[in-house]
């Protein structure tokens, strides 16, 4: 295949990129990076991703190496949906501005508190065997609820975050949102108290592309060879 994605199936950031491949039915090879052994910090990996993170991509069609899941997502849409038929990455001046606004909100208002909550409730206990910091959890949850209350206002007036059509801005929420809902068992995205958020989350989280990505739960255990 032309495109190789370096990462692991369970990684939030890897999944953020993979869902877009699935939306556009673009094939890829997922090349395992042994993060338990710290392979992402090896000299070889750092040449491709100088911050030592996953995912990163290599496209043999043009020898392009790329990191940052949202950049990878945009690249795939730009390369494989030139006609813009998917609507995932608007190019019209006004639609694009509203899209960039929505993407920016995901980055600055959703991701930090969602990650804070996921870290305290899931990543620390499950991956790092560390205790939850209750004070940090409370703060992150409050901030997340503040954000989602604003989402409720926005989504009560339009179907998706950038307007009436689904875009990457909505899809970018899926991996962390699923950790919160499925693993931390929180109802922040599903509560009846925010019916528009509930409607939106149900819509995006039941997309076939996401269900396929979510189903790959190949665990973080590697055999050494």
């Amino acid at each position, binding site marked *: 295949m032309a495109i190789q994605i370096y990462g692991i199936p369970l990684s939030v950031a890897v999944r953020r990129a993979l869902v877009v491949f699935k939306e556009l039915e673009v094939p890829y090879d997922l090349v395992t990076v042994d993060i338990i052994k710290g392979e992402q910090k090896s000299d070889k990996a750092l040449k491709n991703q100088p*911050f030592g993170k996953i995912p990163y991509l290599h496209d043999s069609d043009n020898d392009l190496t*790329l990191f940052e899941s949202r*950049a990878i997502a945009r*690249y795939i849409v730009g390369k494989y949906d030139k006609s813009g038929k998917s609507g995932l990455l608007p190019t019209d001046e006004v639609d*694009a*501005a509203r899209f960039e606004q929505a993407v*920016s909100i995901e980055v600055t208002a959703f991701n930090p508190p969602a990650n804070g909550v996921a870290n305290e409730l899931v990543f620390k206990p499950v991956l790092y065997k560390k205790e939850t910091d209750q004070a940090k959890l409370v703060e992150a949850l409050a901030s997340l609820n503040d954000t989602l209350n604003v989402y409720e206002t926005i989504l009560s007036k339009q179907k998706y975050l950038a307007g009436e059509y689904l875009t990457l801005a909505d899809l970018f929420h899926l991996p962390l949102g699923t950790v919160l809902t499925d693993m931390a068992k929180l109802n922040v995205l599903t509560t009846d108290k925010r019916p528009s958020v509930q409607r939106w989350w149900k819509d995006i989280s039941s997309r076939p592309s996401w269900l396929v990505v979510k189903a790959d739960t190949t665990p973080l255990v590697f055999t050494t060879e």
Partner: protein
Amino acid sequence: MVLKLYGHTHSTCTARVAAVLTEYKVPFELVIVDLFKGEHKSPEYLAFQPFGQLPYINDDGLIIYESRAISRYIAAKYRSNVSSAWLPLPEDIAKTAKFEQAVNTEAFKFDAFASTAAFELFWKPGGPDAEYAKKLLENLNASLDAYEVILSKQKYLAGDELTLADIFHLPYANLLHNAKHINLEDEKRPNVARWWKELSTLPSWLAVKDGVKSPA
């Protein structure tokens, strides 16, 4: 109708947008939002910017918030106003990919730590949590070490052309560097120093860095 920029003279994110408006020669009117009176949390303000933050623009009826979204909109709409665009053409897929990589790098490897540290050190009611601020600055410095590697191979964060990805750093980089919480001129990172020297002396930044105002 002249573009209206709703923000504040000394707001970091207002300055980010003002630098881009200045570079792209777009006339604008700065409408001061009275932060001290809590105007940004008033129902009238929230109707336009539902997160209660600064800035937003009103461009002939089009309301856009989030400084980086506004910046991209300006750079796309007024592309023909400048000879060296700060935004690659979408048709150039490889350049655009590297640009998006750089913009995301600024968001997650710089701003995530820098803006949080700035809040902690300058504006948090009750004063900073010293341990937390220290950790944030350590993370920021680790990112700058990676920047050193990147900038040793190319002139700017997205490649060999200056883009919005570099510009986006300015407000918080300036704030933290001037207050000596980070050292962007550290000789141990000569490429970061070279990059910062050029960035921090750009005319469009110099025009806004000490306070945003409506251009004459």
